């Protein structure tokens, strides 16, 4: 415990600003991954345990696209659309075969894919760390707020993640597609009976959820090291976020992601070795007090 480090930082504006920007970066990435996980669970009732691996392949798709074209825009598109498409294929060919069956079967299909994707990445890129590097467009001087420095890419990333979040919220809350999605989450049989093609809907929702994971992976590629195992830790963290926020709630995922991001940023100063422990403690407290999460529907 180094509480004086934390209080020391909080009393200095520049340090606080830097830590807040770090917390926002972690939080926004988590939000993108967690909202996809939450969306898929809300509508299909399936936890995609391979969601973290989708984030990983998003990062690698962006890496390949950036290496070949040197265009960062194309890299993001490759990560987002590539993984979205992969998600649709995954849902149609594999996941749809185990709907309504044992959780065990869903778990095993995802487990198989985590193993396969990790190994495929290892075969293609080797087991060692890869760096994509910062795109030329962001080689700007860092922004200076209250004496704290925030790299230009951080500002871009926070902004674009926030925009995607607002778009997603708007899409779910206001559009016709969003209404169908929300209805399917509550009563899929009724939605099917009303003549809506639920097979198509499920594939689209799965694709959208995967697209969010892929986008997060692509956005993380310039600032994170790429390794075959990078999916698992974000899977666990994004699950913690969805549990705290409440399964199926986009707003909940957003608030919980910020909470976890800030906990990681400031917690790493106060108790560097026990940051993971703090996240689990928060989750455990939320589960004990409110098992459905802060913004979730009651489980029963």
């Amino acid at each position, binding site marked *: 415990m180094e509480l004086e480090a934390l209080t020391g930082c909080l009393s200095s504006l520049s340090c606080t600003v830097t830590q807040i920007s770090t917390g926002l970066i972690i939080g926004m990435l988590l939000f993108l991954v967690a909202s996809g996980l939450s969306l898929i669970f809300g509508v299909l009732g399936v936890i995609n345990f391979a969601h973290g691996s989708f984030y990983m392949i998003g990062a690698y798709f962006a890496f390949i696209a950036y290496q070949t074209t040197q265009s960062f825009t194309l890299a993001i598109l490759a990560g987002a659309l590539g993984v979205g498409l992969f998600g649709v294929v995954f849902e149609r060919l594999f996941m749809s075969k185990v709907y309504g069956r044992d*959780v065990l079967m869903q778990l095993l299909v995802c487990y198989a894919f985590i*193993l396969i994707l990790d190994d495929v990445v290892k075969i293609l890129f080797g087991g060692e760390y890869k760096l994509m590097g910062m795109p030329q467009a962001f080689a700007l001087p860092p922004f200076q707020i209250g004496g704290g420095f925030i790299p230009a890419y951080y500002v871009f990333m926070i902004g674009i993640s926030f925009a995607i979040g607002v778009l997603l919220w708007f899409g779910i809350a206001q559009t016709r597609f969003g209404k169908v999605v929300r209805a399917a989450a509550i009563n899929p049989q009724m939605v099917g009976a009303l003549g809506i093609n639920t097979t198509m809907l499920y594939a689209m929702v799965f694709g959208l959820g995967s697209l969010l994971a892929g986008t997060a992976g692509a956005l993380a590629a310039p600032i994170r090291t790429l390794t075959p195992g990078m999916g698992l830790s974000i899977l666990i963290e994004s699950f913690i976020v969805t549990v705290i926020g409440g399964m199926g709630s986009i707003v909940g995922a957003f608030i919980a992601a910020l909470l976890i991001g800030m906990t990681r940023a400031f917690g790493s100063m106060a108790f560097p070795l026990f940051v993971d422990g703090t996240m689990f403690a928060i989750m455990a407290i939320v*589960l004990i007090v409110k098992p459905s999460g802060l913004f979730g529907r009651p489980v029963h």
Partner: protein
Amino acid sequence: MWAQSSRRDLALAALLLIALVALPYIFPHPAMRDFIIYVIAYGLLAMSLNLLVGFTGLVSFGHAAYFASGAYIFGLLMQSGEVSIPVAMLATVGGTALLALVIGAICVRLHEIYFAFLTLAFQMFIHSVILTWVSLTGGDQGLMGGIPRPPFLGIDLGNSMTLYMFCVVLFVICLVIMRQIVQSPFGYTLRMIRDNPRRANFLGVNVVAMKLAIFVIAGAIASVGGIVMALFVSGAYPEFAFWTTSGEAIFMIMLGGTQLFLGPLVGAILLQTLNHFVTIYTEHHGLVLGIVILIFVLGLRRGLADYVYELIQSRKAAAAEPKPRAEPAQATFTDETRLADKGANT
């Protein structure tokens, strides 16, 4: 009747014990003994997990946490040099039961998919504790320096043959305990909870307490698997607590089937054999294992042993009486009740 069946179980256990004890005299190759100890360690992990998955319907994806806890607590106690092996074993099983009680108390109240994920999350938490608490656990190097095995009651586990016999006896004792649990009224209550938790609750069963009890028991038995493993490799490694160990245990259950008591053990033997051959031919172990899992899940749609079991059952039924409609009708009935349950829950 209950006494009669448990007498028969005891006789079968004695036969198994004799067979396992005789095995190294029939096949004197040490690799055979090593393989069996390995299967015992992972078999105990898979069979204790099946108490949760197969008998109670609790899909835990973090069961290896208790396996690792068994290996680490036992290893640390023995390295302290202050306790004898039996005392360390009792303390390990007790300590792991306590750990499972704390984690279980938070997890068992949740529904299936939340439960699966939460157990996974707690396991990864324990894994990260093992990795970061380097001064105690040796971090990613594992518990180094070997585990001392001082003789007790005239038993010297430093001798590899004695170690084998010791593990075999431990294994059979655990099997008998698990069999007794499964056959007891408590075991039947667990099956009722699996098939219809609402009805069980309505009949006055304290579902949460029952789930917690079996969660603790399963954790304690998994820790015995961890002790066997620690004794065998003379160390403990963070991989024991990694999620893939739990995944493999789940797959062993799937491979061997959930319907037979010994199914997970069959799965452990099959998976260890598969691993053995895969690692000879390729380093891409995950790729091969993943594809095999997909073939089983999407092709057979159940465990290998369950498939064979059902095949034999339907052959028997067909031979006894030409009544082909009976079984499908039964199947649809259970499916519908399950669906109705799901609908009511969401």
